[in-house]
């Protein structure tokens, strides 16, 4: 299969992206975000889950959570490229919500085939979900899961579960006698305890979830295969989020250095400020181009999807680190204060950078594909 020149990013996709941008501009400007999530600055603050549930309900109403659900399962069946466009705007707004997790679960459920239908039906009905498969060491390999399925119940702990406090369903990877299975679990079921983590990122919540005999519906008996198929879309979407957030960082910083004067010149006059911001732009564009290439591969060149998605996430991770660093540094003393909004994106990006593999990890996997496994 070959890719269409325009990444399959057609008119509908453009409309969706545009309307999302307008939606956030109108309903969720950055000062609202700051007011919502940054009320308690103390470093040792208790874990919390601050989000605008009413606004989220509107988005569910608009159908955003079912865009990736196939039509036959009650969704819209939009291509990954179009979904990436939406996620880019969510990242630009740093909107706290369980969209990414729900999309991730959707792609994994689709990869489960018929057995996944039960999960897709829940998502089509508006339930938010998230993946639970990481071990305590934060391994990016799902086979490291600490959760076991035995005697009809799930046991063990899943770590680093994203936006757990906002979700009603969990898609859990657990070792079974026969390998690894995927289980669709009610987040509030008996035997499921979510322990919220105290995290740096104010725009997300995170938990480790303890399973003690919880029951769940097995949606796949071959978890690794389903995850293998779905991961490229998952990597691509988190990269799309980072591209949007990076663009916010760039534009906000450009605006600041265009107005802030030192030595009778706007800061942006100085090449020591200007050239690093150009480099941020260059890195954002690289990551963005690679995101749509990877998304399009998920849609129409699946044999290349993993390769291109590794590229996109590696590029986005490095970009996010650099864009974050320059956003604070270029803002000077102001950028070092809690009241300036740049720290919200700084923290979100540092979090995203690690999510589902950092740059080094993705490049190592890419090398295994392109060069072959090292002798």
């Amino acid at each position, binding site marked *: 299969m*070959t*890719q*269409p*020149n*325009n*990444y399959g*990013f057609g008119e509908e*996709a*453009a409309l969706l*992206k545009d309307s999302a941008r307008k939606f956030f501009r109108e309903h969720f400007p950055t000062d609202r975000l700051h007011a919502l999530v940054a009320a308690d600055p103390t470093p040792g603050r208790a874990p919390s889950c601050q989000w605008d549930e009413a606004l989220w309900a509107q988005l569910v109403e608009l159908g955003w959570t079912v865009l990736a659900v196939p039509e036959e399962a009650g969704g819209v069946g939009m291509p990954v490229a179009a979904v990436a*466009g939406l996620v880019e705007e969510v990242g630009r707004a740093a909107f706290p919500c369980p969209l990414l997790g729900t999309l991730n679960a959707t792609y994994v459920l689709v990869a489960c085939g018929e057995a996944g239908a039960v999960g897709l039906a829940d998502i089509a009905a508006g339930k938010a979900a998230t993946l639970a498969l990481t071990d305590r060491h934060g391994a990016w390999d799902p086979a490291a899961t600490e959760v076991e399925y035995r005697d009809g119940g799930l046991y063990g702990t899943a770590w680093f579960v994203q936006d757990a406090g906002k979700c009603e369903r969990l898609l859990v990877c657990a070792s079974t006698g026969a390998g690894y299975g995927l289980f669709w679990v009610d987040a509030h079921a008996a035997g499921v305890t979510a322990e919220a983590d105290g995290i740096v990122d104010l725009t997300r919540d995170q938990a480790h979830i303890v399973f003690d005999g919880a029951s769940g519906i097995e949606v796949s008996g071959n978890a690794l295969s389903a995850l293998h198929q779905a991961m490229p879309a998952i990597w691509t979407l988190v990269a799309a989020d980072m591209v949007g957030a990076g*663009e916010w960082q*760039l534009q906000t910083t*450009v605006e600041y*250095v*265009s107005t802030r004067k030192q030595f009778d*010149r*706007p800061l*942006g*006059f*100085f*090449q020591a400020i*200007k*050239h690093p*911001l*150009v*480099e941020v*732009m*260059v890195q954002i*564009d*690289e*990551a*963005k*181009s*690679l995101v*749509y*290439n990877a998304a399009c591969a998920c849609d129409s060149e699946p044999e290349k999807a993993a390769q*291109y998605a590794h*590229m996109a996430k*590696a*590029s986005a991770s490095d970009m996010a680190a650099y864009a974050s660093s320059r956003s604070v540094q270029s803002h000077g003393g102001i950028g070092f204060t809690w009241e300036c909004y740049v720290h919200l994106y700084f923290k979100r990006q540092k979090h995203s950078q690690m999510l589902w593999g950092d740059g*080094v990890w993705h*490049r*190592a996997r*890419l*090398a295994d594909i*392109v*060069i072959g496994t*090292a*002798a």
Partner: protein
Amino acid sequence: MSDASARKDTPAQAEFRAYCRDWLAANKPGEPPVRLPQTPLEIMTTEQLDYLQAWQKAAYDAGLVGCDYPEAVGGGGRKDCQRVANEEMLAARTPFFPNVIGLGMAAPTVFYHAQEAVKAELLPRLFSGEDIWCQGFSEPGAGSDLASVQTFAEKRGDRWVINGHKVWTSLAHFAEWMIILLRTDKSHKYDGLSYFVVPIRAALGNGVTVRPLIKITGETGFNEVIFDNLEVDDRYRLDELGKGWQVAMTTLLHERGAGELQTPRSGGMKNRSSHNITTSAVIELARQTRRGAGAAADDPLLRDKLMRQLIREEGLKQNQRRSRVQALLDHPMRLPLQNKLLASEIAQSIASLAVEVEGMASSLYMGDSNAPAGGQWPLSYMNSYGMTIAAGTSEVQRNILGERVLGLPKSK
């Protein structure tokens, strides 16, 4: 690629594409009798030039060059067909065209700014490659700061008398014509510039001297050109007096691939001298290079660096693709203006990585029979500085991006 593009052809384009494909199948030139350089700018011998000129002439006669220019100036009179011809030539892996500055920079500038009679006089032989063109912009005192050129044209009656000194003029040793930026008024920096086309070959020894400059690699390929009372007719002035800077922008826009008219491009031919500055070539090198007990390609640090390069390379390719998808662009010049910066810096880091992979063997040069890849990697690494310096240094490119795209205040 050729087939994917074909799907969007208009009927006229489809017909033309079929014609190109047939013609190329029958007329693609055979193996060159001599080793070809890496790019047209490094053509050093007349044997190389003869072979490449014959190919350009054949392609022009067949209608594959200048397709979108009007017939009156020697063009094909078609609409948006050069792109089609280029795609088919790339797919057929033809040799490159030697008159690269003529086609990419001189032709659109002459077309948009010269008198009709001058277009008709010059463009046909430019398209056919019979006349090679060169570019006279840089001077010893005017590099990044192009507008400070001092080579002076003084009006005497209906003619202009030119005195001064141009440098880094690739292909000047073969060129019939030069596009040139001249000072016609010393009292205004930008408005004191005018733009001409001047005969080089015809005036050799009689107002024009061409001297080869040697590069840090030891290669020749570019020149300095000295003007000593060269007389030129006023008809060879492009556009109005004092509008040289604006005309030069047309040239630079097309040089950066951001112009209106598609440049005729041929290429893709593999031959025994071909040395591609690509990550996959370095991966291949790493596979063949011993490092410790294994191959360099097994070394985790080199693998990481190789993948960094591959990602940057693919990123640039996808930038070019995305630059044609309107809905994914925020600023029309944001991607096109990155092209030159990225292409040159990526080439430099690829060559640098190849040298690192070679290790001690990177000490061996072109004349050493044990040199890996014939010593071309250290050569390419050194040549890459030509790319990050010429046609606006990387530093100048970053200024342009910061000012024109991000809207930051001018640094100069």
